[in-house]
């Protein structure tokens, strides 16, 4: 039996090692592949604490294994009555003091980092011309989608956050309905999105997302918010400052009317059925019932998580509930005034939406 136990522990250790070596997850979303200062700080804390904790585990394991190997009754004999030791003040002191020292090692960076990561004093600082020194994004969480407003730039988008790399980006978080939590694992830890107050923090994006396999970082809602909590994803596109400024300028222009014939049909349908909830212009401050669809054609996913192609888009428009249960978008039939969209109408809508783009 004992042999089984030690063998098993060895086996467990091997598996653990294997699992660890088999990868650190996907770079779009893993906290183990940090892509910014905040995530890096947090990763460093993870490594530091893991080292300290591994030390603890090793000490405990050595005593543990020695004890259960050395003091088996089968070895000592049935009738052996061990000495009834009361305790030892010296030992008690040691295993009180050593953990306190270990905790102090962790406590100092913890306190430093807690204050450092919460420091948003530079958020509202302005330069001589009265422009803000740092980019601020107002994030509003809605039931299963995210709105990103750039107040200084006067533009708004949804589901896909676009940010410049290598600089601090500040965020104001608030919820329009119930509590959510804003999390981009590979860029930094989460912060709750409460209905009653604005939460502020900052993130830094070191890596252009174009270097990633799928071209975007994955963002998540990390607070249970109803049936489609699991699907309340968003994507993050990080680009260098120059490209970001181009994107802002493009977004600040009102969209051109559709050029292609099919897309023109789509625009008309959109104006009848969809415009009550969705804006197609990125100019403004958001707050509509549905996500802003400006630059929809440039996005990486539909509804934050579905494949970005026309077929999926058509299915989504016909029956959003099937893909994101509990979301507030009515089905195609309701939007079309009681009659399902025809295949042709869906093609037109899809063509129109995909033509909404600000990238060259």
């Amino acid at each position: 039996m004992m042999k089984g136990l030690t063998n098993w522990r060895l086996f467990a250790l091997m598996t653990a090692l294997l699992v660890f070596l088999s990868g650190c997850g996907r770079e779009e979303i893993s906290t183990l592949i940090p892509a910014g200062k905040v995530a890096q700080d947090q990763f460093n804390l993870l490594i530091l604490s893991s080292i300290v904790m591994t030390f603890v585990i090793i000490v405990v394991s050595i005593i543990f294994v020695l004890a259960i190997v050395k003091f088996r009754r089968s070895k000592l004999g049935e009738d052996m009555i061990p000495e009834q030791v009361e305790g030892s003040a010296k030992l008690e002191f040691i295993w009180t003091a050593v953990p306190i020292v270990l905790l102090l090692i962790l406590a100092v960076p913890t306190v430093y980092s807690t204050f450092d990561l919460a420091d948003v004093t530079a958020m509202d600082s302005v330069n001589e011309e009265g422009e803000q020194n740092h980019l601020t994004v107002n994030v509003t969480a809605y039931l299963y989608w995210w709105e990103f407003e750039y107040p200084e730039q006067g533009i708004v988008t949804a589901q896909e956050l676009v940010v410049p790399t290598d600089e601090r980006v500040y965020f104001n978080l608030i919820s329009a309905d119930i509590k959510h939590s804003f999390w981009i694992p590979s860029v930094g830890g989460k912060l709750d999105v409460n209905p009653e107050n604005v939460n502020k923090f900052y993130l830094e994006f070191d890596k252009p997302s174009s270097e990633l396999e799928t071209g975007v970082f994955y963002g998540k809602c990390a607070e249970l918010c109803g049936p489609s909590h699991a699907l309340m994803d968003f994507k993050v596109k990080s680009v260098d400052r120059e490209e970001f400024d181009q994107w802002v300028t493009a977004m600040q222009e009102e969209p051109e009317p559709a050029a292609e014939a099919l897309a023109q049909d789509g625009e008309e349908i959109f104006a009848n059925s969809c415009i009550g909830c969705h804006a197609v212009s990125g100019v403004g401050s958001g707050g509509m019932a549905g996500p802003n669809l400006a630059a929809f054609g440039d996005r990486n996913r539909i509804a934050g998580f579905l494949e970005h192609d026309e077929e999926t888009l058509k299915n989504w428009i016909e029956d959003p509930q099937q893909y994101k249960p509990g979301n507030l978008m009515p089905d195609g039939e309701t939007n079309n005034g009681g009659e399902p969209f025809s295949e042709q109408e869906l093609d037109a809508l899809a063509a129109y939406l995909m033509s909404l783009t600000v990238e060259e």
Partner: protein
Amino acid sequence: MSSLAQKKGFGAVLWDYLTTVDHKKIAILYLISGGFFFLVGGLEAMLIRIQLMKAGNDFLSAGLYNEIITMHGTTMIFLAAMPLLLAFMNAIMPLQIGARDVAFPFLNSLGFWLFFFGGIFLNLSWFMGGAPDAGWTNYASLALASEGHGIDFYALGLTISGFGTLIAGINFLVTIINMRAPGMTYMRMPLFTWTTFVASALILLAFPPLTIGLFFMIFDRLFDSNFFVVEMGGNTIIWEHLFWIFGHPEVYILILPAFGIFSEIFAIFSRKRLFGYTALVFATILIGFYGFMVWAHHMFTVGLGPTANAVFALATMIIAVPTGIKIFNWLLTIWGGSIQFSVAMVYAIAFIPSFVAGGVTGVMQAIAPLDYQLHDSYFIVAHFHYVIVGGVVLGLLAGTHLYWPKMFGTMLSEKLGMVTFWFFFIGFHLTFFIQHFLGLFGMPRRVYTFNADQGWDLYNLISSVGALFMAIGIIVLLVNVVLTTVKNVRVGNDPWGDGRTLEWAIPSPPPFYNFAQTPLVRGLDTYWIEKMEGNKEGMIYAEPLGDIHMPNGSIIPFVMSFGMFVAAFGALYFMDDTKPWALAVLVIGLGITFGSMLVRSLKDDLGFYITKEELIEDAKRGGNTDGHK
């Protein structure tokens, strides 16, 4: 009274259990109902793991999945782990301190029935329009937005069962303060009694905030108040504070009694006095004390500000110190002992590395900035399952093997016990170890599905396979229980041979009056002292054999709790326009409860006496009558 040992019919036995105020029978009631809810919660866990077995699975719908995770957590914490621990506290603690029963036998029964009806009420939600679906933490904004009556079942059910738990807590505290046998000073109490004492104190101070939070929730949902309604000036963070002011101590309410069980096991099966008993006692008290100062570490990401986060981070880290003291004292207890690898001991030994793993990840999450990454991810799921399963559930399984003979007079099969152990232990690590990595890979908790492109598929599959192993282990345990009961091989006072404390000095199961004569306690591990000194009689007694005063059984606790159960339905449907009868039901239910309370206060209940002659007669028959009339 003299016809004690007759064969009884099923109806008589049922009536006996409905009216019993005997702590040992109430323990059995807690064990059976807690065990039942444990199976229900386990079934829910299996459904969760089947759903997450592969990416994009459609085994469960999104809404149903949320109901299942909510009920899994709620059931396991409130309806399985707590009552199972209460079962052992009830069965063993009065015996360990040499008492004939708890301080308030009537309230003991009331506590059980309130818990029972609360649990049944909560689970009836499955059949009456849908279970609660806002997670076991039931955060206010989601809970208020939740449609149907699920959340109302949650709030009302937990209120009722919470009253039951509070009553149990007060009862144990008074029992330990007032009813210890002569010579049983506080520093001679067995560690399980100590942990029961501290856990009860935590129950006493932690459950009221939960009850208040639940009341606010009930008022907001059913009577249109505005505690959590943001547009009306309400604030949902209040719920989070109240919930976690309860919720964190609750973790210690669960783990401390498990620590107590393990402490007993280490001493018995190492045949050695607990190393550093005094340190263990003070560590227990310290853990209980700190338990109230760290609740906001569940709320690091809420946005309380860096000062609050830093303070709570440091306070949380401090708890690692007394916990570490405990671990090392246990290790030093087995060090130099003579270890017998009984099933109970194997669970206790397996507990040490499992719990240390859960403990160190706890410290990692105390590091607030790191917790921003770990919070609400699968890392936290892994962490608290390591603590709860690796600590509490292993403790419960160990306790089941250790105390089964004392509670039922038969021994569970050690062979089958080992089978259960290996399946459960391997399954447990397989299921949860890998979840740490899922969390680090960015997987949030409480997701009903996941896309395949995120690198989580393989680990989720492994985790699901592990869950299957655990299920097999539990099924073998059930077989073990059935076989043991059928074989019915009776055992003596001290079936393990190395019992150290008072419960092992009396028959298994003990007679309903526990001790014919109150024992005199001469030190820590008092029974061991007598054994080592070769005392043939078992114990030295503090009093001559004489009449014993016993409380009467009563159906009132059952009726009183049933009244609350009825009233809860009235409150539940109070706001429904289609159910005008709801108010009447509410009034009738409260009428039953307060009416039976009045009957209880107006009718004298003075108990009865067992005479000396009856005691002598019973002793001749083996001294384990259950007092059933």
